[in-house]
């Protein structure tokens, strides 16, 4: 079998198996085994074991379960509730302020977690009932939680970034710095959008009634509970960005910070730590096998010369490097509507990233665009994960259709942000460049 036949066949099999509901991990692993045996005989199979052992020996990946543990502990310590209550007290007579505050809290929560689920689920449970109570229209309430909560995928410590960095070979620390810039721009655009809509449409998200506004004393007191968690975030992200610590070291410090915060809030106990560990292994067991089988899959694909082939195809494209880049990002977006972001990293990352480098595109810049695009995929109907997380925690009278409808304006905003990143790369690259 020649590579020109084998490569498309591998990807076709991959898509068919995924569509038939076979878990990603076993799909990639099975295909790697079958095609390696077909192409190079059984002699090639021992290489897959080496690829798997390589994953187990990768120090960057150690950050993943540690960051998951950190976010689980902070989550069980009810940090999101504290943050929301504090921010809610500060949201005053301004129309739409509750939605803006929700997005702001989502952004901070995103900096404590590496996955979208945490923010979307927590804020869906905490903020949505409040916004309904104050007669916010559901499209704006759902949209703010959906878009804001999903920032967990992009704002460090993001699992997606660690996986991309480890797979493609881009510095995770620098990508984290770029992720902060991109995430803050996203979040700023969301807030600006919500406040603008609220300004022009009076009944969309009304201001809080005067009797429900907090006094200055209350406002100040509310800050007490959030000092420690915010301190943890600053220490963790700060130590990565200043280059003082590796992401893995920062993650361990973050776990310690989470435990201290929980203790300070008197919410630390053994059963909560144990429950956090159980939640962590459920996710890690999933990520672990995806990474192992993806290592097998990409070692097979790369041995076939797929990256070079992709590079040649993109080189031959009319329109130059930027058009090729737009094409690859478009593919990421389309796949993102159907396939999980983790899968996209392992399917597209090793194919596109080397080709982009060949075309002379800055790999850090491309990586930020790539993960930002995945962030869009997270809230894209029909199958973006966050849509289902949110519809899972909202009352039964909110249909998935409502959630879909709420997503579109935010998808447009994210695409606008992406165009900004393409036109002026400096907006996402200045922080990583500061790192030297």
């Amino acid at each position: 079998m020649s590579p020109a036949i084998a490569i498309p066949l591998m990807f076709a099999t991959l898509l068919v198996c995924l569509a038939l509901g076979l878990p990603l991990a076993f799909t990639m692993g099975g295909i790697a085994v079958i095609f390696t045996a077909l192409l190079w005989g059984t002699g090639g199979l021992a290489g897959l074991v080496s690829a798997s052992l390589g994953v187990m020996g990768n120090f960057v990946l150690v950050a993943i379960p540690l960051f998951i543990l950190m976010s689980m502990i902070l989550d069980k310590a009810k940090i999101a509730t504290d943050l929301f209550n504090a921010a809610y007290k500060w949201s005053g007579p301004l129309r739409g302020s509750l939605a803006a505050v929700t997005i702001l809290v989502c952004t901070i929560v995103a900096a404590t977690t590496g996955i979208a689920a945490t923010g979307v689920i927590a804020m869906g449970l905490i903020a949505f009932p409040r916004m309904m109570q104050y007669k916010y229209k559901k499209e704006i309430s759902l949209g703010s939680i959906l878009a804001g909560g999903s920032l967990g995928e992009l704002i460090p410590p993001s699992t997606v970034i660690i996986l991309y960095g480890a797979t493609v070979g881009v510095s995770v620390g620098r990508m984290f710095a770029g992720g902060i810039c991109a995430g803050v721009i996203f979040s700023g655009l969301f807030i600006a959008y919500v406040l603008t809509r609220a300004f022009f449409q009076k009944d969309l998200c009304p201001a809080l009634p005067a009797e429900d506004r907090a006094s200055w004393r209350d406002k100040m007191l509310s800050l007490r509970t959030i000092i420690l968690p915010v301190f943890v975030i600053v220490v963790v992200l700060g130590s990565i960005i200043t280059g003082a610590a590796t992401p893995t070291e920062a993650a361990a410090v973050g776990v310690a910070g989470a435990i201290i915060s929980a203790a300070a809030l008197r919410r630390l106990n053994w059963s909560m730590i144990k429950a956090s560990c159980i939640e962590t292994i459920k996710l890690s067991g999933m990520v672990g096998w995806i990474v192992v089988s993806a290592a097998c899959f990409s070692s097979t694909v790369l041995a076939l010369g797929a990256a070079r082939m992709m590079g040649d195809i993109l080189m031959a494209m009319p329109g130059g490097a930027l058009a090729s880049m737009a094409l690859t990002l478009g593919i990421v977006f389309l796949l993102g509507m159907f396939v999980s972001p983790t899968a996209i990293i392992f399917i597209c990352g090793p194919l596109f990233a080397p080709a982009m480098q060949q075309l002379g595109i800055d790999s850090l810049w491309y990586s930020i665009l790539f993960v930002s695009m995945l962030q869009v995929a997270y809230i894209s109907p029909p199958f973006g994960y966050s849509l289902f997380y949110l519809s899972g925690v909202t009352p039964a009278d909110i249909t998935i259709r409502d959630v879909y409808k709420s997503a579109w304006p935010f998808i447009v905003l994210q695409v606008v942000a992406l165009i900004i990143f393409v036109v002026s790369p400096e907006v996402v690259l200045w922080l990583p460049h500061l790192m030297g």
Partner: protein
Amino acid sequence: MRILRSLLRYIDSLSRCTGVYVALVILAVFLLIFVEVIARYVLDSPSVWRNALAQFLFGAYFVLGGAYTLLFGGHVKVDILYDLFPARKKAIIDVATSVFFFFFTIVLLWYGIDKCWTATMRNELLEEAWRVPEWPFMWTLPLATFLLLLQGLAKFIRDLYHAITGGQLQ
């Protein structure tokens, strides 16, 4: 049938037990790396072994949780088309696609044992500052693959039973 049922129950509880205990390994990984951070940046006395040991434990942790995740159906999949089918059709599809699962796990187990056995016989050492035998930790890959294979087999038997009879095998 009775023997089969108790075998399935046994596999389930094996996966559950490993999951619950292995879950705590992450605390050890955390402590090792955290202590190393303190030792290196605060006390200025780094060690050669803490991060390496944490890496070993992480490797085991990352793969040993797989069976537990499978027990709970936690391995991420794409359910666009899949969810359109009724339960029994799903079972039939799962039986068919399990070919990929078995190819993967059996090959990884077979060649994993082969590689680990060689490393054990040669007593291969870690190629870093901390020169210790690497093979005891390498064995966690075939072990984890074996546990995953067992849980996958349990799922396969249940799916097959459901596909044929339409009933559930608990």
